[in-house]
């Protein structure tokens, strides 16, 4: 039995966790490749027009996986660290089942449906049982997988911290959801441009999630979404250490449409630019805008 993991949405948050878990329980799996033109076009074609780009990409990746595996892994997560998720993460299992109804897909999933702190553990246990794995092995695999993810994130953060302290370049904080930063079609062109302009991209997503969420409470009392709080907190923590902020968002993102407005209002002293990526034009026109953004920051720095 082979499991297919779409390289989209939650994958970018849990890569090490999932792959380690499946490795440890001895399950065979494939991960869809980096987003390419074909995946993008397929995703675009099978989605409702108005769907946000990351969800279109999810469907594109699943389409790629369909005849290459037995089960497709689509977790459902309604809450994270006690906060809400965008409704897309609540709906994705049903969305996928309905979109691909005629193609008889089988889904493997786990369901984090409430705020209980051990809900994820229980959900993973259930999934392991479904896969016919012994309980003790699931337990061990879960712990190992969690650790793997933790170390990965810690290492990533420490590395970035070092860059923050040592780099003499212009530092630009890239604020974008994990699945946007990591995607070949969305985040990569932006990172590439920043580097070619001689800047040091600092990635908000790489900052410690728990710490960021705590920091976000200083800025917003009622913001419901865990992922947006993570990003907002990163700005709050780094506002004095970076020279500018890029709000990279995908069209039409529900949560960002409001949170970005708040960010622009709360951090008036920070140079901020918003880049919106959609499925049609991608990052077209972005280079020129980034160039002038960096120019302005450069000028400001020289004057100071």
């Amino acid at each position: 039995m082979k499991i297919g993991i779409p390289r989209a949405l939650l994958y970018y948050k849990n890569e090490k966790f999932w792959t380690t878990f499946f490795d440890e329980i001895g399950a065979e799996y494939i991960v869809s490749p980096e987003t390419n033109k074909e995946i993008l076009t397929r995703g675009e074609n099978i989605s409702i027009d108005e769907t946000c780009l990351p969800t279109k990409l999810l469907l594109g990746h699943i389409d790629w996986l369909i005849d290459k595996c037995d089960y497709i892994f689509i977790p459902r997560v309604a809450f994270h660290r006690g906060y809400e998720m965008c409704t897309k993460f609540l709906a994705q299992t049903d969305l996928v089942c309905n979109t691909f109804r005629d193609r008889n897909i089988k889904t493997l999933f786990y369901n984090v449906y409430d705020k209980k702190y051990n809900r994820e553990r229980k959900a993973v246990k259930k999934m392991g049982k479904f896969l016919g794995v012994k309980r003790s092995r699931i337990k061990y695999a879960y712990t190992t997988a969690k650790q793997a993810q933790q170390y990965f994130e810690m290492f990533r953060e420490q590395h970035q911290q070092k860059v923050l302290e040592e780099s003499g370049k212009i530092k630009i904080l890239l604020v974008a959801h994990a699945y946007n930063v990591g995607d070949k079609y969305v985040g990569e062109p932006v990172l590439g441009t920043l580097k070619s302009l001689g800047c040091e991209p600092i990635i908000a997503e790489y900052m410690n999630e728990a710490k960021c969420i705590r920091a976000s409470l200083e800025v917003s009392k009622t913001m419901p979404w865990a992922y947006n709080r993570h990003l907002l907190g990163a700005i709050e923590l780094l506002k004095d250490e970076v020279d500018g902020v890029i709000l990279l968002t995908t069209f039409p993102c529900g949560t960002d449409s409001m949170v970005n407005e708040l960010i622009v209002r709360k951090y008036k002293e920070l140079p901020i630019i918003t880049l919106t990526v959609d499925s049609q034009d991608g990052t077209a026109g972005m280079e020129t805008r980034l160039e002038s953004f960096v120019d302005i920051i450069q000028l400001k720095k020289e004057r100071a």
Partner: protein
Amino acid sequence: MTHREVVACFPHIANYAYAFKYLFENGFEVKYLIPPPITKNTLELGSKYSPDYVCVPFKYCMGCYLEALDLGANCLMQIYGGCRLNYYGELNDCILHDMGYKFEFFDMAAVDWHSPKSIFENFRIINPEMSIAKIVKAAPVTLKIIKMLDKFEDFIRHNVGFEVNDGEFDRTYKEFLKKLENLSDGKELKKLGKTYWKKLNGIKLNKPAKTIKVGFIGDYYTVQEPFSNYFMEKELAKFGMEVYRQMNLTSTLINKEHRKSQKTAKKYAKFNLGATANCTVAEAIKFAKEGCAGIIQVKSFGCTPEIDAMPILQNVSRDFNIPVLHFSFDSQTSETGIKTRLEAFYDMVEARSGK
């Protein structure tokens, strides 16, 4: 009986302002301002001060607030829900304060509903000396108003397309609303209800035994606020169709239909999709089973849960062999485009009903 000249106000949704007015004036003992009716101006004003890509109900709320502030409202209120609505309040509040307005903001999303202390403290924003006894007394009447509004509007929805004298329903209902505005107690409401129920029932109809029924579904705001759906129910009635709609405050707040909806929709959606999406699916199934000739889904552009309901609705449409038409509204939707699509829809369902 007003206290320290608090003037409270919710943004408009359908005609519920009359129920809220009763609750706030008789229960909380503060003044309640019914904002001016929504117009194009409201939407333009609201859009001007809202983020570009936010869903359009947010823009309507902003417009309503701005118009109400100019008329002296000083305690704005916002509800919460299972989607972006949970963040409306804070952002409304932040933008309006940045614009320099002075007001209090009662944000239901900021209340911790598990903590009596938090509930009490938040409600004190409206009136620090509120009397629980008075609120408890006003609440049942408020619910009765809501039920009455919904019952009347349902009746109108089923019949307005067949009135003999154009505009009679509209006139009668408006008259009723006017009277509601200065309601003194439950007794008066009962009397008023009786009188107008009779009046509505007495309106001359020319209704065939078999009508073309159409189900009206969509996101919480757009389906309920006629301005935001370009008065689509009225347009449908003009074609001589009977409009069915389940979504209203009675079904969600009082009858808790959404719990049943979860079950009805189960075959298509195993889990909660967020906000009202499961209701949307369940209603579509229900209307299809009840013999509607077509279904119309209205929603604001970018509404995430309703977008996820669309592929599901398409499956419902195939299984029940019923056409489903989708409308997405933002602040720049063209009216003529809507009309053309409705005409085509009508032609199709008419042909299918074998008339």
